[in-house]
């Protein structure tokens, strides 16, 4: 079939080129769209603004029916968006006419930014004060001081107001914070744009005043920008390094160009489709280029290496024959590897988390595109280009060394497996030290501006991150009930005692502050009023002024719901979720009946999203592993073999995760992706190894020889792809950004361990359990007369399959010798196809055909072979040794008895026939 396909391709080369070019052009336009370009001719300006945009919104990472997401959406619907951007300005003294004017000017400029809903600062927050029969509630911005004496008076007033101190201004009056709250619809690229403008505006307005930026979204965007920046900087270097390695391997332009062009085309096709589909990438999708690069290089090297090997070994006369042979040799294994990867990645779509679904769908699509290119572009290019052997000498000598080593591992399987499992177990023990948590701040260096900003704002001000408790009073007007206010007040007190909490803000603070103001600013009245009428009228008072929506974000229009804002330190997700749990327990335990509180909020959702991403990735990886196992099971027709085939895939991942545990590297959003990429690479190698082994074992009865051939043949492509990828990704270690650096490091480690498992563990595993795949059983072409075979007499087809699975298939070419007189033998051979001739002293004794057995003595006793047996034509036999018989006895004792009974019958008949002859 592969040969026919190559011949078809050769006849349609022009069409193939046209179709590939057309798809690439269309997808190229899609990539342009994805980067934000329009379909007009590009200009220098439009090129400058091209940028891959990442949608960081939390709702991408939680299922639509997630109760936390629904609670957050309801909170946003009632109170508006609780997200904010924070800037900290450092002065000698905030309270000078110039500095207050600067803050006021900056706030006015920020309030005009598209997407900014509300700006709060020391100058832009109502400052309540009272005297006898007088009440003031204006923002400082409306009456900016003109003299230092006025500024000093404002300083005294502000620093005595708990709403301002350690929130908008530091207690020492040196730091001022500006908070910009956003509209709910401002997400993804719009938020990205707002953050950029926020920074630019403040840097322009602040002039020489040092400004630091913090906040959840600034941190998230910084994180993704740093990742994209580093990927953008280092992935091309990775590609160049890979090109150099390929050049060293192949010493030819096509050896370098074809894998790289395949890689580029698969990236263009995949991202082009995303561009046309209008899909926004999520932070998880950032790994896609790396994944596609890996797959493209691995797949294309399998074909190209086989092409060169065919040219060196078979010496075909023309390029079509060469391509046919290479395709025949590699396409089936490639197809199985790609099919497994597609099923594995597509299995990620079986989730209700939109981001994981998208990642699974795009990965599967990318793998399909890579596969299409491997089956079309690569052979077409080889058919177009002149047939030219590699200028470099084949790596026969060192591949021979590796092959011999692999043979050794096959023979010394017990010791090899003990060592391999031992090493894996020791490395995997590190799993116990592995921490699964997400703390995005640790991605930045401790002296980075963003870490400094968080530190300053936590030390001096009210924190840059917040969670909320949404209070539901169960009826309109409940928020005017003094009992409700006291419950909220008690929660605030409890929250402020928790270590991650910096400050709490609620409408209760406003009510208490106004109560104090209407009582002549007497501190004794900074309490919750006794009656609901007082509370109602104070809440009305809060709405008077230039900022009527001042407390809309804290209490709703019906006075049924309230919101407590809890500012927290930039702690890891686990600690924050623990705090949320404590708060929820406190609410459930202490609040009066009918009053409910729900923990939600921007940072809480980010932590939930991070946790969901992590869970999704781990679950996705496990799901992929299960799917891969099922595919293996189906392919090899036995769950045990499927499981054994999984071992070399899972071992590198366990080892890498264990190493991460030893080195104190946490499993987080970035590092969790390693498992999927590592599985992809290991899986490809394993499938190639197994399929080529099965092919070899058919023509070489001895597993040792088959192992030698596999390692010497397909092993070369495996080494090439592992080396190219390892050296390429090692470049990422040079990154200054920790997640990228760790990714590079552990990719390198994954490649090394995958190589170890392929060439050490795999031969030993095969030695331990010979593999007979279900397609070999199909190849046997069981016919209706199968039960007529004397060895399988009175056995059902299912029983026969079991027996066949315990043995191994051998396909002998014509005239090949199956047994030699005098040599030791421990196997019985059942002729399934073809025929053999038995010779004693070179005299033909008999000819045996389908269904007949030979070598029974070897199975029953350790007797040397009594005659020569050779194949008359291409012959398939089932070799059934003593070990297989033992295994059959262990697992299917009744079947073993039946087999031995049949064997006795055959031997007695043969004995009877011999006796008859002797008469």
């Amino acid at each position, binding site marked *: 079939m592969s040969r026919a396909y190559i011949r078809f391709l050769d006849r349609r080369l022009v069409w193939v080129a046209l179709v590939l070019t057309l798809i690439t052009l269309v997808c190229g336009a899609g990539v342009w769209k994805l980067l934000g370009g329009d379909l007009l001719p590009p200009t220098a300006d439009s090129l400058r603004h091209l940028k891959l945009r990442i949608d960081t919104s939390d709702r991408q990472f939680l299922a639509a029916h997630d109760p936390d997401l629904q609670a957050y959406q309801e909170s946003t619907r009632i109170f508006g968006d609780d997200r904010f951007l924070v800037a900290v300005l450092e002065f000698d003294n905030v309270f000078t006419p110039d500095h207050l004017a600067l803050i006021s000017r900056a706030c006015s400029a920020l309030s005009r930014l598209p997407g900014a809903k509300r700006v709060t600062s020391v100058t832009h927050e109502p400052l309540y004060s009272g005297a006898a*029969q007088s009440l003031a509630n204006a923002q400082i911005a409306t009456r900016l001081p003109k003299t230092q004496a006025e500024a000093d008076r404002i300083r005294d007033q502000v620093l005595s107001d708990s709403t301002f101190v350690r929130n908008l201004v530091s207690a020492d009056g040196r730091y001022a914070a500006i908070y910009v709250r956003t509209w709910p619809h401002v997400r993804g690229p719009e938020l990205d744009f707002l953050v950029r403008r926020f920074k630019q505006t403040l840097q322009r307005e602040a002039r020489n005043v040092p400004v630091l930026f913090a906040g959840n979204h600034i941190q998230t965007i910084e994180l993704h920008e740093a990742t994209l920046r580093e990927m953008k900087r280092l992935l091309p270097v990775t590609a160049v390094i890979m090109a150099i390695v390929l050049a060293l391997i192949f010493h030819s332009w096509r050896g370098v160009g074809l894998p790289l062009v395949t890689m580029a085309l698969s990236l263009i096709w995949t991202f082009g489709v995303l561009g046309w589909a209008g899909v926004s990438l999520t932070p998880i999708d950032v790994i896609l280029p790396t994944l596609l690069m890996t797959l493209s290089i691995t797949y294309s090297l399998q074909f190209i290496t086989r092409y060169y090997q065919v040219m060196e070994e078979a010496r075909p006369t023309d390029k079509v024959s060469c391509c046919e042979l290479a395709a025949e040799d590699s396409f089936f294994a490639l197809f199985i590897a790609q099919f497994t990867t597609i099923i594995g990645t597509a299995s990620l779509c079986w989730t209700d988390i939109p981001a994981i679904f998208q990642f699974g769908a795009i990965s599967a699509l990318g793998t399909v595109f890579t596969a299409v290119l491997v089956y079309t572009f690569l052979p077409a290019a080889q058919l177009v280009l002149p047939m030219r052997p590699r200028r470099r000498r084949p790596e026969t000598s060192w591949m021979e060394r590796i092959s011999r080593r692999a043979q050794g591992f096959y023979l010394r399987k017990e010791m090899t497996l003990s060592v391999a499992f031992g090493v894996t177990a020791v490395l995997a023990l590190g799993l116990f030290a592995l921490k699964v948590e997400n703390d995005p701040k640790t991605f930045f260096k401790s002296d980075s501006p963003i870490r400094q900003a968080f530190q300053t704002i936590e030390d001096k001000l009210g924190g840059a991150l917040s969670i909320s408790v949404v209070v539901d009073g169960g009826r309109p007007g409940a928020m005017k009930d003094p009992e409700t206010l006291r419950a909220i007040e008690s929660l605030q007190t409890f929250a402020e005692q928790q270590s991650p909490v910096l400050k709490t803000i609620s409408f209760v603070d406003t009510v208490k502050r106004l109560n104090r103001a209407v009582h002549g600013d007497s501190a004794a009245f900074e309490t919750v009023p006794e009656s609901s009428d007082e509370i109602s009228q104070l809440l009305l008072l809060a709405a008077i002024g*230039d900022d009527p*929506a001042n407390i809309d974000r804290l209490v709703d229009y019906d006075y049924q719901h309230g919101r407590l804002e809890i500012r927290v330190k930039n702690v890891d997700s686990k600690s924050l979720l623990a705090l949320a749990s404590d708060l929820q327990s406190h609410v459930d335990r202490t609040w009066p009946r009918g009053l409910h509180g729900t923990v939600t909020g921007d940072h809480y959702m980010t932590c939930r999203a991070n946790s969901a991403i992590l869970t999704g990735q781990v679950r996705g990886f496990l799901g992929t592993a299960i799917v891969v196992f099922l595919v293996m099971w189906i392919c090899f027709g036995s769950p045990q073999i499927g499981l054994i085939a999984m071992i070399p895939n899972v071992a590198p991942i366990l080892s890498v995760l264990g190493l991460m545990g030893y080195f104190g590297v946490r499993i987080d959003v970035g590092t969790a992706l390693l498992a999927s990429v590592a599985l992809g690479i290991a899986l490809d190698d394993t499938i190639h190894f197994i399929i080529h082994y099965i092919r070899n074992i058919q023509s070489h009865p001895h597993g040792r020889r088959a192992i030698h051939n596999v390692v010497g043949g397909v092993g070369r492509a495996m080494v090439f792809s592992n080396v190219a990828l390892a050296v390429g990704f090692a470049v990422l270690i040079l990154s200054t950004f920790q997640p990228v650096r760790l990714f590079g490091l552990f990719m390198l480690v994954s490649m090394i361990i995958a190589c170890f498992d392929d060439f050490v563990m795999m031969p030993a595993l095969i030695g331990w359990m010979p593999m007979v795949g279900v397609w070999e059983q199909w190849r046997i072409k069981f016919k209706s007369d199968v039960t007529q075979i004397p060895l399988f007499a009175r056995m059902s087809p299912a029983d026969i399959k079991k027996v066949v699975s315990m043995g191994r298939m051998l396909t002998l070419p014509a005239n090949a010798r199956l047994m030699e007189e005098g040599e030791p033998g421990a196997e019985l051979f059942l002729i399934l196809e073809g025929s053999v001739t038995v010779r004693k002293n070179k005299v033909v004794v008999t000819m045996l055909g389908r269904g007949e057995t030979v070598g029974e003595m070897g199975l029953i006793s350790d007797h040397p072979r009594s005659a020569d047996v050779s194949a008359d034509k291409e012959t398939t036999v089932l070799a059934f040794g003593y070990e297989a018989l033992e295994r059959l006895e262990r697992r299917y004792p009744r079947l073993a008895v039946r087999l031995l009974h049949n064997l006795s019958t055959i031997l007695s008949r043969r004995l009877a026939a011999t006796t008859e002859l002797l008469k």
Partner: protein
Amino acid sequence: MRTFGIVWIFCLVLSCAVRATADALDTTAVRALMEKVDRNLYPDDEIDEVSLILIHPNGQQRQWRIRQYYQRAYENGMGAILLRFVDPTDLHGTTLVSVNQPGGENNQWLYLPAFRMPQFLADSRKSDYVFGSDLTFEDFTPCILDEYDYAFVREEIFAERHAIVIRKTPTAPKLQSRVKYAYQMLWVDPDRNIFLRADFFDSIGQMYKTVTWGDFYQPDRIHWRARRVAFFSPLRPHWTQLSVEDIQLNRGLPAEFFSERNLTNIR
């Protein structure tokens, strides 16, 4: 061809006529029209009861019933307003009085019955929102016409009425810091001397508020009044709908009525 020529000449004549009208309105007619509107909208005093519905962008509403009293002080063109909550019950009796000062400021006193003492609101400004609605105190204030520039913009049909669109720009220096808008676009019904619509624009040209009046009638057979007024602030965004009832004009309210001493007595 001949028909085309006639149509072309007709259009030319029409455009010249419109242009001539516009030129006339540019100068004295606009001022005269605004004087008529001012006389219609701001009598000596006025009492009415207003139902307000404040609509939050999340769809939630607050409903208030307020009795409002207005007096114009002709000597300086300014005036005073007194707003007293009738409903809901927990706000009943809450009263705010705002007295405009000749210098452009306004003095405000608030009486919260639960605290039993009128409070002087020291930082109050005309541009402040009234109890969180979309109304500001400047919406209640008659303007001194000389302090503004009125420019004809166009004529059009608005809400099935012939309307003259006028751009109103504050010119007096004292107004620069006291009014929030940089200019207003007013749709004036020249037959009834009332506003049909007003759009408010800030200094960067963003429309931050729009008001529409509807369901007009003459409570005293002289002055035209709207039964329904709708405010919309697109930048907040927020809506306020007013239903005005029981309008009484020129009832001879004394000036003392608008003093802080009266806040505790008024029923």
